[in-house]
């Protein structure tokens, strides 16, 4: 195995690039630029690659959303600043720089796809696991470093395909991020094919990562790191890996089948008697649109837990460290996250209540959906109780983590009416759903991800991010995210449906004109005016990310140097090695003697006891 001890790329002040021994060939001088930054099997480099790439996708998805919100507020009005560029690149899809309805649909589909599969999952799950997980368990790297590298490459390929689909004739996929058949097979664009092939690459990347992380946690824990001494972050990522391992493949199978429908004219998801444009489609028929939905949501539901569990893991680490107390209920947390993992596989059809399933089946999925809310509440409760009597340090990571709690709480609680069949009938496919899931992912997961960036930045670089601009970022994001998403609950309950390019104006007018103004189904002026608030909120939310982006890159070279390798005075193993860690993470393999959250242990001279500190 490798004995080359080249240094991690961001390290400076150490013997950068000088202390390596070549294996066998004397002229071997280390891996060079390409081997260090681009084709490195080092999990820390791969973690950063994933992190930066997914943040770029996050920003791209954000811009898609801004243009959509503009269109919703001002249908047919050219998008400011970006309008001319849109028209130049996309031609007739963006007449005079405004979004045509088809373009709106493709932005909607791609916003969802990019945010879920190219931004949040690669960042929350892959990037964070890659950088932190091996360090936290005391391992020298991931179990399969080269597979790790391959998974990043597959991810990039998938992302490139998705981005390219915007500029092909016909444009990108337009049938929602859920790509329901028959629409997905009938939309006259090759963008759907790009989407499907892109998904196959992205799923492959995710599977390789999942295999890697599970094997790493099982096999490469340092001596003394028993299962119940693992940081909760590791448990969360471990369960998340299983979710992806077992739930991604059915979507991959479904994507292959939908690809066959599109390219080989099969009828996996196309029913007999399907009519397109007034004439019977020339297909064999016999397929089932419901089959696609089942296979999609079999992934789709575990997917949402993939989006939230890593966030809970990150928040747990930060809360423990910044309350200077052990997390309350570690065992409850572990059993809860295991229960969530298991249950998440058998709740999926609560996304399909309106497909005409029998009441017995609806009853089953309703029951499992209600049951799965229990461990989620347990986890949140453990975090809340952990704050009791704590000596809280209100630094930027802690602010984001604290805000995560009520924000995720709102997201989770607003999910309850959706879990019940009877209330979901009214709320399905409305803006209520959009508000619910964005609350969980945007001021939920993304806040946790921001928290983690501020928290682990000193470990990656040896420098701190600027605390003032961190707070500006925090307060701005908190306020504006709520301005964007809170009104959507009201809009959804008033009946505003999803995926309408003009924000419901035509639908509302059509209903109102039939039976007088302001009847059920019509949308009142108050509801429609909320679009303006939301647009302003979204724009200002974007503005307040600018200090974050500048802070992130500027602090790499000019941030205040961290006081030492453990500036937060944390107990977990990643803080007990250099910042940034050397190639094999630990100069000597650590030995673990205690659990992960031994803060404020009575009789100890400091208020934290690292996991690898030998007992006295």
């Amino acid at each position: 195995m490798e004995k080359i001890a080249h240094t991690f790329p961001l390290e400076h002040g150490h013997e950068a690039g000088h202390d390596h021994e070549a294996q066998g060939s004397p002229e071997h001088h280390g891996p060079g630029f390409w081997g260090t930054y681009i084709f490195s099997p080092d999990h820390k480099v791969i973690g950063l690659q994933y992190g930066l790439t997914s943040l770029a996708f996050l920003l791209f998805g954000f811009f898609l959303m801004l243009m959509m919100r503009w269109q919703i507020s001002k249908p047919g009005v050219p998008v400011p600043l970006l309008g001319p560029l849109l028209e130049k690149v996309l031609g007739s899809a963006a007449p005079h720089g405004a979004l045509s309805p088809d373009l709106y649909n493709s932005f909607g589909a791609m916003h969802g796809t990019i945010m879920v599969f190219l931004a949040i999952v690669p960042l929350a799950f892959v990037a964070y696991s890659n950088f932190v997980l091996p360090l936290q368990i005391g391992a020298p790297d991931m179990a399969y470093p080269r597979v790790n590298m391959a998974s990043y490459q597959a991810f990039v390929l998938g992302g490139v395909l998705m981005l390219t689909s915007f500029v092909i004739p016909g444009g990108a996929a337009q049938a929602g991020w859920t790509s329901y058949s028959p629409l997905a097979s009938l939309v006259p664009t090759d963008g759907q094919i790009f989407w499907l092939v892109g998904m196959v690459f992205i799923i492959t990347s995710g599977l390789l990562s999942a295999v890697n992380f599970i094997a790493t946690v099982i096999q490469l824990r340092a001596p003394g790191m028993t299962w119940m001494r693992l940081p909760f972050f590791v448990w969360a990522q471990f369960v998340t890996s299983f979710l992806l391992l077992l739930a991604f493949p059915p979507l991959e199978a479904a994507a292959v089948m939908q690809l066959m429908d599109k390219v080989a004219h099969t009828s996996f998801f196309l029913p007999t008697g399907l009519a397109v444009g007034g004439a019977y489609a020339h297909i064999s028929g016999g397929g089932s649109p419901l089959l696609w939905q089942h296979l999609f949501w079999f992934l789709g539901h575990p997917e949402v837990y993939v989006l939230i569990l890593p966030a809970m893991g990150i928040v747990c680490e930060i809360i423990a460290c910044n309350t200077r107390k052990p997390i309350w209920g570690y065992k409850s947390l572990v059993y809860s996250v295991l229960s969530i993992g298991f249950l998440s596989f058998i709740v999926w059809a609560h996304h399909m209540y309106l497909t005409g399933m029998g009441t017995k089946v609806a009853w089953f999925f309703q029951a499992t959906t209600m049951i799965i809310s229990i461990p989620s509440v347990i986890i949140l409760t453990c975090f809340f109780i952990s704050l009791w009597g704590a000596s809280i340090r209100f630094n930027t990571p802690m602010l984001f983590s604290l805000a995560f709690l009520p924000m995720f709480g709102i997201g989770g609680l607003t999910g309850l009416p959706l879990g019940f069949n009877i209330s979901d009938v009214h709320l399905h496919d409305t803006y209520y759903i959009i508000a619910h899931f964005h609350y969980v992912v945007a001021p939920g997961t993304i806040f946790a991800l921001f928290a983690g960036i501020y928290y682990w930045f000193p470990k990656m670089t040896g420098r701190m991010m600027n605390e003032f601009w961190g707070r500006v970022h925090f307060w701005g994001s908190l306020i504006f995210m709520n301005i964007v998403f809170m009104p959507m609950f009201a809009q959804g309950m008033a009946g505003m449906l999803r995926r309408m390019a003009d924000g419901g104006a035509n639908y509302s007018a059509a209903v109102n004109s039939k039976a007088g103004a302001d009847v059920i189904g019509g949308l009142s002026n108050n509801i429609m005016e909320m679009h303006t608030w939301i647009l302003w909120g979204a724009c200002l939310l974007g503005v307040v990310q600018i200090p974050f982006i500048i802070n992130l890159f500027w602090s790499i070279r000019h941030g205040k140097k961290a006081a030492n390798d453990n500036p937060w005075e944390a107990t977990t193993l990643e803080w007990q090695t250099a910042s940034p860690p050397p190639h094999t993470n630990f100069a000597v393999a650590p030995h673990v003697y205690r659990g992960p959250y031994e803060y404020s242990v009575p009789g100890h001279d400091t208020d934290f006891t690292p996991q690898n500190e030998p007992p006295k």
Partner: protein
Amino acid sequence: MDFPYIVEPRRDTGLYNAKLGIWLFLASEVMLFGALFSAYVLLRVGAEPGMWPHGWLNIPIGTANTIVLITSSITTVMAWVSCKERRYGRFKFFHALTILLAMTFVCIKSFEYHDKFTHYEVTLANGKFADGHLMERSKDFDLAKHTGSVTIHGYEVDNEADLMDLHRPEAKNIQREEITIPATEIKFMERYGPWHHTYLAIYFTLTALHAFHVICGAVVIGFLWGPGTKMWRTDPERFTNRIEVSGLFWHFVDLVWIFLFPVLYLL
């Protein structure tokens, strides 16, 4: 820090890293093929009564392929045993056999695919159906212009439903002969490709995905038989582990076929 458990297993799990990895990967593959199998079940259960085909695949050929794969499974195991016993020559022999059997499987499969792609269902202008293998097209055959004729080796039926169940007792009496059909009598003709019926769609998808796994497995085994043997000299235990890991994948491929064969060919 040394990288642990690449060769020697970790005591509490009893596994070396690569073995755990391949089992995890196989778990995901179970879900992949499982989803396709559940698609098969759904499509079959949801089909119109009497319109789900039986007997469209050749059972003796399928049985032969099954035996080919089962044999390749035991040659894979024997290759690993030979490695454990450090008998290099025997390992090479059994591994080569495995690759040959894999290629045999793919050849037989290709033959089956070709057979389907030369099989046509012809919808006649008079509402009846002709069905059989294409023998020849006349030089001036053009369906759009209604010129020329096709000759198929098959039979004619009144209803499309009569083409479905070839396992029913009356099907034994079907006489197949050469039938020449002028283009003027043909409304529409379609090959037995995946677009023709959802049964064929799932058949082609399942078996093509499976064949893709066979080919990938054969490539890996081929690599280990050829360039990969360099490691035999430097680290034979680690090389043996690689043979075991690739063998596990290969057995999975065999496993999938053990279910594919009865489901697609027999039921």
